């Protein structure tokens, strides 16, 4: 492990001092503080809201969780997409591997450094946001709320490191950094934009929403108001099926797993329609973790699988002239 830590130390120094890290960190803090400001405003106007809503915000506002859902993949992959192939393209890989170190020290060291940078970034952002929210609200989080914030920080780091391991995998698979950037952007677009479109399309085919469903049958349905759609029981059932199928498809998205789990930890439960956050039922930290252990496990397993694949491929990688 001595080689791993030497490499990690060097990589960490490079990353922390890089313009890339400073710019990303500054952007993250700025966005999170803006989101927290909205959250603080919301908390002040809603007596039911608690301190942790500086991170979850409301249905309509921009929150820390949404920032992570949107930019987390890019953030995580940014620290890993060139971990190995940059060494190849600059010709330093053969020099590095020419030292009396085990080959896995290189990938371990780089991963440790990337994870440490992301942990600094994730935890740092949460800490700064919390620190700024306290004077704005005039009070701090309770012990239970502090535990939730701490758990959110751990979950956020896990989520970011998952993307780091995927980025690292791209850096091993792709010989050029330009190719791994494209892989990373394509992955980000798939999970952030395309998957929800794909899920809607699949749901529309498998559970179509017929116009007949809006017609109120005699007696047993609700009326939302004159001239409005009427929800029949059949409509409710179809909508439930559609929501469940959408949820199932979206479960392949790490961003979705993170969003669901983070929302649950912060005490907001999902409402009837996907994405609509309601404050009607606040979960305790234990409940949230119990309800979402599968999400956390999938994220952790995904992380391990991606890193294991990178590890194996790197150990078997043929060092060619020019590497």
């Amino acid at each position, binding site marked *: 492990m001595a080689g791993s830590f030497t490499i990690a130390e060097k990589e960490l120094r*490079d990353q922390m001092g890089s313009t890339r890290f400073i710019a990303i960190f500054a952007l993250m803090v700025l966005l999170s503080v803006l989101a927290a400001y909205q959250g603080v405003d919301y908390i002040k106007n809603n007596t039911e809201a608690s301190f942790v809503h500086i991170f979850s915000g409301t249905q309509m506002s921009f929150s820390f969780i949404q920032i992570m859902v949107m930019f987390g993949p890019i953030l995580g992959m940014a620290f890993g997409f060139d971990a190995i192939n940059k060494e190849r393209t600059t010709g330093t890989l053969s020099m590095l*591997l020419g030292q*009396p170190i085990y080959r896995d020290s290189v990938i371990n060291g780089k991963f440790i450094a990337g994870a440490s940078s992301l942990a600094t970034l994730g935890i740092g952002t949460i800490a700064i946001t919390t620190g700024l929210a306290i004077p704005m609200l005039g009070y701090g989080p309770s012990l239970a709320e502090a535990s939730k914030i701490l758990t959110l920080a751990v979950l956020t780091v896990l989520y970011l490191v998952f993307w780091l391991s995927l980025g690292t995998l791209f850096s091993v698979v792709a010989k050029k950094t330009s190719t791994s950037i494209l892989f990373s952007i394509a992955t980000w677009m798939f999970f952030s934009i395309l998957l929800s479109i794909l899920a809607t399309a699949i749901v529309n085919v498998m559970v179509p929403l017929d116009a007949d469903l809006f017609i109120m049958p005699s007696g047993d349905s609700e009326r939302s108001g004159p001239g409005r759609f009427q929800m029949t029981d059949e409509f409710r059932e179809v909508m439930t099926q559609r929501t469940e199928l959408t949820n199932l498809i979206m479960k392949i998205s790490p961003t979705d797993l993170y969003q669901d789990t983070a929302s649950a930890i912060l005490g907001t439960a999902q409402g009837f329609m996907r994405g609509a956050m309601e404050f009607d039922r606040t979960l305790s930290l234990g409940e949230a973790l119990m309800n979402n252990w599968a999400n956390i496990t999938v994220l952790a397993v995904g992380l391990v699988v991606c890193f294991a694949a990178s590890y194996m491929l790197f150990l078997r990688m043929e060092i060619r*002239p020019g590497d």
Partner: protein
Amino acid sequence: MQEHVVNTEALTKQYGDFFAVNNLDMEVEQNEIFGFLGPNGAGKTTTVLMLMGLSIPTSGTAKVGGYDIIEESREVRSIASILPEYSSLYGNLTTFENLDYLGQLNDMPREERENRIHEVLEIVGMSDWLDAKYESFSRGMKQRVGIASTMMKNPKIVFLDEPTLGLDPVGTLEIRELILDLKNRQGLTVVMTSHILSEVQVTCDRIGIINRGKLVLKETMENLNHVMTGAEDRRVDFKLNKVTPDLVKDIEAIEGVKEVKQENGLFSVYGTDDTDIHISQTIVEHGSTILLMKPREYTLEEIFMKYYQQEDD
């Protein structure tokens, strides 16, 4: 008997159907500069990468410094250094930081690292550039720092891959002197790959010519001329004021003379080393005057082309 620092037996590297290195048998002796020659893509760098334990051979074995390159690759890398084709250290780091990093990877204590950095930079003449960033250096300076980096670990053997490639004449000369210095003053064994034949000719003690993965020649620089004319033969060119049929006949009769040729006004005699005096006497006895007498020395280019073409045929 000289100790072999590098010893390969039927070393082979295959990519699909393509043999990058094919049944390579090669030895490199201690404290010699071995030139590994070949055209681009001949398998030179692949061989070096295998010898450093960075690329796994498809078959065959090799030892470097007595260590097996597969089973003991880490030990190999503790006594062997490589300078890749384009010396590459980290551009964003200074000379000191780059060398310090390599020292750390070699488990050297801080004080030892710092002393060693000053020593190796002194050797390559880059002591004044300790705090300059690697990316700010010219190609020649990068090569010099690169050579310093190979010496950080106090190696027994250094593999230099095309060390003078892309350098201007002054830079080439400086690196050449450095390579000779590695052998003569630092006591290292050097294996350098190159396709610049003139470079190898003035630097190396022995050469190996590799073409299409096969070693087609291994020879000391002194014996290269014999390689062209036959195992023990040499060629001497004479320019005489007159050549008579009897003279030719008498020279052909001298013991040790294999062949006599006349072309372009030159009278060339192929034979063993001890025939020169007898040939000279015979010429004088026949009343001819020797205007020029010159043992034929083949250039490495000629030798290389001979073997290169043989392989192609």
